[in-house]
């Protein structure tokens, strides 16, 4: 157990020491770690994670709405196929962006696998991914005119 958690710990430490001031918070538990950074350097961090640490693909892009803090947290979960010791680890790269104008640079050039996940996050939470080549509606009906459904102020009818 200690050998495992030391791997995550070392990954987090490596990232924290590389991007000292921009790292807002970081945490780790067995096989998982999470690092929250400024949205300005997310591209650099992602490139570092891919090239230096060896996480070769992103598994998902998630957005969580926090109306109390006025932010939307966008989380990229990434893991690795090519490095055997990293396969069991799932990392999370998070940014917290203002709710009123949620904009972050797209990571599609770093991890091409985020294409449809970013589109989904765009329509479900209204987060704009700058630089995404095909940022348009994916799952919702063509005539959707309401606010993005996964925002907390969108209430389900009858609830």
């Amino acid at each position, binding site marked *: 157990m200690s050998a495992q958690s030391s791997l995550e710990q070392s990954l987090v430490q490596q990232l924290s020491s590389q991007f000292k001031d921009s790292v807002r918070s970081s945490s780790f538990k067995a096989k998982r770690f999470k690092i929250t950074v400024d949205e300005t350097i997310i591209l650099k961090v992602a490139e570092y994670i891919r090239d230096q640490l060896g996480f070769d693909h992103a598994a998902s892009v998630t957005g969580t709405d926090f109306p109390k803090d006025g932010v939307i947290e966008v989380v990229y979960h990434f893991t690795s196929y090519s490095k055997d010791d990293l396969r069991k680890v799932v990392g999370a790269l998070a940014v917290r962006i203002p709710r009123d104008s949620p904009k972050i640079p797209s990571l599609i050039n770093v991890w091409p696998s985020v294409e449809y996940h970013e589109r989904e996050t765009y329509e479900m939470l209204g987060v704009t991914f700058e630089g995404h080549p095909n940022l348009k509606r994916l799952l*919702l*009906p063509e005539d959707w005119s*309401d606010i993005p*459904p996964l925002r907390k102020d*969108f209430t*389900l*009818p*009858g*609830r």
Partner: protein
Amino acid sequence: MVKSGALAILVGRLNDVLQYAVGEPLNYLVNWGRIYSLWPVHLETACCSIEFGAASGPRYDLERYGVLEAFGSLRQCDLLIVQGTVNRKVAPRVRMVYDQMPDPKYVISMGACSNTGGLYFDSYNVLKGVDSIVPVDVYIPGCPPRPEAIIQALIMLQNKIKKQKFAPPELKQIETKVA
């Protein structure tokens, strides 16, 4: 005036005679033809399609009840089985498919979701029942319905078709002309 009235009576009588002499046997014949050659459209709207697949598989074998495999063009189909949840994006397409089918056509609503919205009663994207866009003949409850329930629904539909009256279109036309 008198003449056309008499003609109307004569045609009415003729109509009655035809109805009894030809209509009833013809009715039976046409309905018999329809009952055992129900062609379902292959329109899967959600997950109930798996159980429809199982129902057309060897164990339940829908074909022995006169329901053919769902691989034809919808232009030759007369049965629309709405297989599961109908959401706001697929709803116009369901209607479009229904409109393109030739008459007579029948609709079976399969599963709780397409009957009433089911498990997704409070979802923002799901229709509360497919009967708001197409007329439904038979509803199958269940989430998903077992293949036996699908077979039962088809037999119910066949019984319904048996009782239908077949109206030859030509006779109707004469009536309207005279009146």
